[in-house]
């Protein structure tokens, strides 16, 4: 039982990371029916930019926690800029020419370019991201939890909640929802819908960058770190449905927990299998996802 709870805890924090990245996929899918297949690399860059800022600040005498907190606005701003660039360079043109596959190829290509850039700037070897919180687990009812795991869950929830509030409360958020509902009609309201789509890409990369700095302290940081995460989060977005915010959280948790259960009770080598089986099952029986309404088209 204790083991089981322990596994549950680590599954939850990994699952929330998947959830945040998948949430990013949803943001752009909602407004433009396109996705950034370089989402994993957006995560990588966020983590590495965070790494550089944090180590620089620590070098200047800041504590790891202070350095981490100070780095967050920079990392998030970097995510916004990186996402806007992806939309500008990779998506806008493809959407203008109504090319079905154009944005897929170009976002994958940009992802590869970003990964090469990361390898050239930060090297190919994994780096140790200074942990902002104590690395020793605290014991809660016999279950050991690392403080960073709690921070991951809280940070992920805060991010999604903030976007949800923005969409519901502010007139700009409502403009984003209107664009997702009916782009032409939103244009008639005086909403610059291309700007809304750029913004959703910016926010999508911001989610990935945040996921990057949340996960970096508990894993190895490096140019390779985003690829697998981005792919699994894609599975989560499909499992949870591309239109349901709650869906990606639940989907992320399902995947995170099944992975850590398989890793413990079966074999770590097989830990990626159940998620992929789940993905195949969902795609064959409920292509709109467990919670979603819109099926992904021609991808």
């Amino acid at each position: 039982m204790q083991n089981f709870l322990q596994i549950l805890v680590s599954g939850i924090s990994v699952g929330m990371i998947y959830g945040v990245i998948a949430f990013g996929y949803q943001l752009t899918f909602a407004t433009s029916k396109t996705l950034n297949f370089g989402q994993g690399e957006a995560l990588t860059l966020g983590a590495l930019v965070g790494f550089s800022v944090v180590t620089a600040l620590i070098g200047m005498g800041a504590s790891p926690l202070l350095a981490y907190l100070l780095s967050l606005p920079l990392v998030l701003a970097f995510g916004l800029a990186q996402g806007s660039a992806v939309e500008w360079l990779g998506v806008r043109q493809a959407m203008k020419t109504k090319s079905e596959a154009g944005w897929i190829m170009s976002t994958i290509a940009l992802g590869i370019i970003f990964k090469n850039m990361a390898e050239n700037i930060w090297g190919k070897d994994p780096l140790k991201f200074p942990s902002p919180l104590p690395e020793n687990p605290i014991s809660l009812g016999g279950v050991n939890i690392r403080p960073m795991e709690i921070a991951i869950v809280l940070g992920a929830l805060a991010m999604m909640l903030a976007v949800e509030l923005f969409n519901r409360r502010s007139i700009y958020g409502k403009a984003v929802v209107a664009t997702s509902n009916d782009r032409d009609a939103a244009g008639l309201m005086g909403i610059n819908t291309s700007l809304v789509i750029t913004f959703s890409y910016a926010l999508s990369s911001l989610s990935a960058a945040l996921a990057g700095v949340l996960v970096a302290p508990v894993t190895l940081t490096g140019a390779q770190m985003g690829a697998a995460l981005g792919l699994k989060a894609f599975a989560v977005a499909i499992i949870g449905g591309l239109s349901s915010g709650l869906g990606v959280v639940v989907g992320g948790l399902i995947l995170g927990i099944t992975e850590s259960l398989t890793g413990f009770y079966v074999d770590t080598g097989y830990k990626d299998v159940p998620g992929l089986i789940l993905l195949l099952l969902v795609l064959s029986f409920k292509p709109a996802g467990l919670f979603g309404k819109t099926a992904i088209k021609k991808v």
Partner: protein
Amino acid sequence: MLKIEKLVAGYGKVQVLHEITIEVPKGKLVTLIGSNGAGKTTTLRAISGMIEPSSGSITLNGTSIAGLPSHEITRLGLAHSPEGRRVFPTLSVTDNLLLGAFPRLTGKRPKGEVEKDMQRMFELFPRLQERREQLAGTLSGGEQQMLAMARALMLNPEVLLLDEPSMGLAPKLVEEVFATIARLKQASITMLLVEQFAAAALDVADFGYVLENGRLAGSGPAAQLKNDPAVRAAYLGAAH
């Protein structure tokens, strides 16, 4: 106010409109009639920037708007209640109305009193008030039509384009829609109205234009068009 000259537009390589010229003077109600597929909706789409005209000129208060993206045209004061209602289904009635005032709420047009205008919409369409928190997608067709009109009015527009506001409504509601249009006209709102009920549209309008296969087939004061034998035979049917 709104001047359209030799407008040519279509979809892709298919040309639908052939050198259409229409003028909508300030404070007047102009109606555009024609059979299904004549190009009425296409005309309104080209005016509001939903499609790009291939040639011709469109000016709003002397400013050329041909070829501008639709959000910029809206910000210049042109509201378009499109064919098929196109309300935002996952947003509430109130949010749909607020979005109609988006340029006013974001500093792109004089703000005025948005709250008060919303109240006026609820007076004009009491049914919407009862359903203010309901999601627009769950409204009946008639209610959605009222919402689409109210949403367009929330811009405080210089010119309002209405595309078949009575489409799909029960006869009693059609009467209501025309009564509302008459009230808007009394309030001196400049309008370009496209309607399937040509007779009723000509009754309420100041001027009329007749569109046939993408070409203008006639125009004149509404009362005169209504008595034109050719127009009567083609569009007003046996009822008149």
